[in-house]
């Protein structure tokens, strides 16, 4: 917004943009809203930063998955596997 003295008449204010980020990324905005969002992103570096941070949150959150794998109490696992083996005795 540097340089300009006021926003375009149809500009979406930043405080409305930030409430629409998820709807925008989910692809559920109708074409009119999407146009407003994209037009605003072109002129606003602060909101481009918000969008970039939103992506970063998604990437980092996605990394958490690996923490849950192979981290199970061996006793619980044993109990369950025993139940499974009772239900499905392996073929001779």
């Amino acid at each position, binding site marked *: 917004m540097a340089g300009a003295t006021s926003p375009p008449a149809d500009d979406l204010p930043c405080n409305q943009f930030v409430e629409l980020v998820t709807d925008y990324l*989910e692809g*559920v905005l109708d074409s009119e809203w999407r146009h407003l969002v994209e037009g605003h992103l072109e002129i606003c570096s602060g909101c481009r*930063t*918000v969008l970039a*941070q939103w992506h970063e*949150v*998604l990437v*980092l959150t996605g*990394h958490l998955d690996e923490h849950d794998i192979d981290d*199970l109490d061996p006793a619980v696992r044993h109990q369950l596997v025993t139940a499974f083996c009772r239900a499905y005795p392996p073929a001779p």
Partner: protein
Amino acid sequence: MADDFSNDEVLVRQLRRGDEAAFTWLVGRYDRALRRLALDFVATPAVADEVVGDTWLAVIEGIDRFEGRSSLKTWIYRILMNKAKTRGVREKRTVPFSSVRGAATGAGGDGEFATFDPDRFRPPDDPDWPGHWSSPPTPWQEQPVERLEAAETLAQVQSAIGALPANQRTVITLRDIRGFGSDEVCDLLGVSAGNQRVLLHRARAAVRRHLEMFFDPAVS
């Protein structure tokens, strides 16, 4: 060659044959995730354990009837959700997903929600740029890459998610950690698409805020 259990067809076939390795893999993959999810719906860890145990028994008993219309993962989660919700209702501790819309519009619930502190924007009567940034966020790209991807950062994300209200935590966990699509999450939780998005947005906003404070403690 070892079987590729991440392929549903292989996994289901081996489970039906009574392949212990397949079941061990499955439990190792999902047990903790199921337990954590169950805790959002029932009162105590002990009850969550029961719900998860019942879920695995249902999986064992039902695998022959699994038709493959959804992924095995979705099928297991659906069993878990049904069992957890039934127990939660009995204990009067269900997550009030239905009340989110009121909360989203500021009518009660957890009160006013804002993605950013309103003070970071110019006031509505600003002569030039009403509602635009007065204190815009600083790009995280300026953080060294090592810091962005450090275990410490992930721990921050984890603790931010842990501090969320249960319904937001459930939605962000299913969507952004477990990789379910929005339709699947709506189906699993019995929540409308709009409510699901509201919960997801709030959850992501909270994680973003938490990370911002971590990267730049000067931001209040």
